[in-house]
């Protein structure tokens, strides 16, 4: 765990040296903070933020912030956080409910993927193409039936007979 500054350790500015105060003030100026008045740190704001950061890192604030001070601190933090885009505003749902909603939506999407894929393949164009193929096949079969000629055994037998006749004719001619 990183070493906390005296400010975060104590939550007050009282124990800070002049050099530390000046360094913090310079950092705040660099960040564009408006909590400075004539080189003095807005002690209330720094203490609030320190208390919040401290609550993350663990050290207790002495004295602890009252409920009103905590609300002020959170409100101040909220004003410094950029507003989320409209599409991300959830209407104040608790985080767990939001996560559950996201999880449920993901599960629904996963369950729907095969159905959506099937629907994607079964587009009107595909159905029309299949109908056209079936119709074309029926026409092709009809045209084949109307085409003169033999098939299968009859064709092979006719060819064998023709071969036999030509072969025997060729054999008989020289005699």
């Amino acid at each position, binding site marked *: 765990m990183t070493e906390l500054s005296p400010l975060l350790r104590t939550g007050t500015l009282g124990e800070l040296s002049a050099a530390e105060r000046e360094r913090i003030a310079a950092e705040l100026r660099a960040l564009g903070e408006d909590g400075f008045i004539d080189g003095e740190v807005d002690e209330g704001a720094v203490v609030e933020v320190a208390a919040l950061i401290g609550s993350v890192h663990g050290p207790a604030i002495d004295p602890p912030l009252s409920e009103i001070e905590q609300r002020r601190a959170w409100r101040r933090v909220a004003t410094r956080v950029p507003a989320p885009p409209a599409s991300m505003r959830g209407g104040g749902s608790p985080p767990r409910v939001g996560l559950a909603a996201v999880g449920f939506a993901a599960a629904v999407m996963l369950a729907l993927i095969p159905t959506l894929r099937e629907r994607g393949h079964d587009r009107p*164009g595909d159905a029309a*193409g299949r109908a056209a*193929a079936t119709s074309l096949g029926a026409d092709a079969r009809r045209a084949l039936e109307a085409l003169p000629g033999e098939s299968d055994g009859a064709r092979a037998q006719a060819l064998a007979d023709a071969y036999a006749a030509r072969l025997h004719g060729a054999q008989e001619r020289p005699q």
Partner: protein
Amino acid sequence: MTRVVPRLRAIMKPFVRFVTCTVLFTGGLGCDPDAAADDGSEREAPDTRLQTRMLAAGAPTPVALAYARTVARAHREADRAVGLEARAAILRAALAEPVPGDMPEAEVLRLELAARLGETMAERPEGAAAAVELLAPMLHPARVLPRDRATARALVTLGDLAVATGDDALAVGSYMRAIRVMSSLRQELVR
């Protein structure tokens, strides 16, 4: 005149459908050109290439005669066979017979055997896919096929098998090629 019109209509019908299918399967149906381009990845365009050659009569040799008689016998036995497996086995054995070198008609007989074997295989569940694998290489668009009724019959059978397997592009391509073969044969008959 009253007789000519229905006849002309009957003759034109397959070719009208031919054109319709060409339009449908080459993306002509799509109103959105981007959507049509996207469809290209999912919907394969039918391959309608067709190269044919006139079937020349081979020299009547004893080997060619024996081959023709073997094929004719196989068909007769297949007619009498009880059960799909027995019929398929007879046709498969005939298809595996060595082909005489100087016998152009042998390819026609083999196409007939393959078409019948394919039809027999397709009578079993999942048999259509295997039948497509049997027939498709024999009728590949890059091959020069004999201009014969057997070629048209085999292409129609391949189209039917493709419909059964859900391969609409292969089905339409095969039917279109069959119709073109039949159209060529009809033109030759008219001459």
